[in-house]
């Protein structure tokens, strides 16, 4: 789960991680009022969406008067921002963050992420602040420093020194400031079960203080249960509505831009099914893992969500029944066709536990549009042919 910049900064503030002062608003008059309250003389008007690259997309602008705050708020609020991290349709800006302008002497990059190889969190930093960090990693990897921190010992002094020297910070007061900043940020990471925190840019001001000018946070979904305060920050309007609805039914769904809807049990087989369709000359319209507890209701919901996509020309149901019995899935499909108007060919491949019984059930039901696939290759081939109208 991801949150907005203004929410990340609320969490930072709780832990004493310095940020410029700011106020989240949802209307133009509120934006002006917020600017008055902050005092100025310079403000930054920032679009709040769950995607990076907002500045380049025109969603972050500097205002030097209250009039400019008003004009920029009018411009940005309600605009659709397209950045390298959104899809082509972009994201509607519904919230703004009005922030004090900062006195920027230097820009850095700072993040805390899980290093999967080392199996512990790692602080990643660079002097190349404000840049796309992936480009920095690609072009000048020597400018990126990584300081892994074993959670069993926590953030120690040497971690801080490694970071400060790595960033070339020589002033003693500044060293102390960056070490304190990183120490607090690491605490934010571990205590909130964050998946990642990214600050780009982290800035140093004229007083040698470090401030988070931006803030991006993502959380481990498996740990949200113990952080109700963070779960309350979830902004569903920033997430794909179909994915959210699917999740309510225990379905894991991701929309793609192809023509063949997929309904599969298990994430690996679901990806493997997409790959097989692609290999046979078709294009998958979605990833859908029905999970281990699929029943008539969830199968029906799966069909409904898949069919909302107007590009879908056929659906391939690919189930390898383990503990899940295929006869139950077959009955689920029959129920689903009663609950939802399935107007495209449905290719069904059921293998594993009780597969012969399942194919009997499907034959007897005599559903129009239903084609049986013998195995993964046969089912995928039939789905590709059906999508092409053959």
């Amino acid at each position: 789960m991801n949150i907005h910049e203004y929410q990340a900064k609320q969490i930072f503030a709780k832990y004493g991680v310095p940020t410029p002062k700011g106020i989240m608003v949802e209307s133009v008059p509120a934006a002006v009022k917020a600017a008055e309250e902050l005092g100025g003389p310079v403000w930054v008007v920032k679009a709040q969406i769950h995607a990076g690259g907002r500045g380049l997309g025109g969603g972050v602008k500097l205002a030097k008067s209250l009039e400019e705050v008003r004009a920029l708020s009018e411009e940005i609020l309600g605009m659709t921002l397209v950045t390298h991290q959104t899809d082509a349709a972009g994201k509607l800006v519904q919230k703004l963050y009005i922030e004090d302008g900062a006195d920027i002497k230097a820009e850095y990059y700072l993040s805390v992420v899980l290093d999967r190889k080392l199996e512990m969190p790692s602080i990643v930093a660079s002097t190349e602040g404000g840049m796309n960090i992936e480009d920095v990693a690609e072009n000048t990897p020597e400018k990126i420093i990584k300081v892994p921190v074993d959670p069993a010992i926590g953030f120690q002094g040497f971690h801080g020194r490694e970071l400060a020297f790595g960033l070339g910070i020589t002033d003693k007061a500044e060293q102390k400031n960056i070490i304190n900043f990183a120490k607090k940020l690491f605490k934010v990471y571990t205590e909130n079960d964050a998946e990642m925190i990214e600050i780009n840019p982290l800035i140093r001001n004229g007083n040698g203080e470090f401030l988070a000018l931006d803030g991006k946070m993502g959380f481990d979904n498996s740990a949200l249960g113990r952080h109700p305060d963070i779960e309350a920050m979830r902004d569903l309007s920033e997430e794909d509505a179909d994915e959210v609805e699917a999740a309510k039914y225990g379905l894991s769904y991701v929309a793609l831009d192809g023509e063949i809807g997929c309904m599969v049990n298990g994430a690996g087989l679901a990806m493997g099914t997409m790959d097989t369709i692609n290999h046979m000359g078709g294009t998958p319209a979605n990833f859908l893992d029905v999970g281990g507890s699929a029943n008539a209701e969830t199968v029906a919901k799966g069909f409904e969500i898949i069919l909302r996509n107007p590009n879908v020309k056929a659906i391939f149901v690919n189930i390898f029944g383990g503990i899940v019995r295929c006869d139950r899935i077959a009955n689920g499909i029959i129920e689903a066709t009663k609950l939802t108007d399935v107007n495209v060919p449905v290719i069904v491949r059921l293998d594993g536990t009780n597969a012969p019984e399942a194919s009997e059930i499907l034959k007897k039901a005599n559903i129009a549009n239903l084609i049986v696939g013998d195995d993964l290759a046969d089912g995928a081939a039939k789905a590709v042919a059906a999508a092409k109208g053959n």
Partner: protein
Amino acid sequence: MSILVNKDTKVIVQGFTGKEGSFHAEQCLAYGTKIVGGVTPNKGGQTHLDKPVFNTVAEAVKTTGATVSMIFVPPAFVGDAVMEAAEAGIELAVIITEGAPVKDMQMAKAHATKHGMKTLGPNCPGIITAEECKIGIMPGMIFKKGNVGLISKSGTLTYEGANQVCKEGFGISTAVGIGGDPIIGLSYLQLLPMFEADPETECIVLIGEIGGDLEIQAAAYIKDHITKPVVAFIAGQTAPKGKTMGHAGAIVSGSAGTAAEKMAALEAAGATVVVSPAEIGQAVTKAMAKK
């Protein structure tokens, strides 16, 4: 022969009396697995599925001599359960539970390593030595005894792969589901040498997916150390960037962890890389014929 578990392996179940634990323990018993008891706090002294229930893993190990624990406790308690097993002297913890917090697994795995305990999972189907011992939730009937070892991040792809291998007339020595979480226990790097050393295993099927770089590490190991033929499939060639595909660890971040880079590394290491899981069976047949 086989790897890690066989007909003599003594197994306990943590979360024994819960719904999932009960159901799957019963299935494992029916398969022939030597389940010697289970652990559910405050139910010690009772009998469940005709096996003794203990309050702690330490007690269970002391009384039964179990070396493997199959863990079904709810996600929030997985870390605790793994660390308890490690301190009680369990040699291998098979963690089936899905949705354990990453931070908990980090701590638990580090603790397990300190105590010399191997872990498998979490969020995995478990391990099965065909016709001898099933510790997990896989459908036992599709695993016929044979000479193909299988390692997979995905449960249903394990079944798909094993089923194809068996339909081609071969069978499975041991199949291991390692799980697709960001932090997992035993992985390719530890399991490949075990299969290489196992006289019963003649061919290895490796099933991976997008995210992380375990498959890249595996490729490097295969190149230098594995003499047996390897057939590999990487799921997620058509997965979009930056989206989690069902498994928490299955995500392409930036340009890292793509199927293409993993397939290329495995191919360069001498493995037979198939582009669809539907081709695993045929590829194994070809690999076995060449031997």
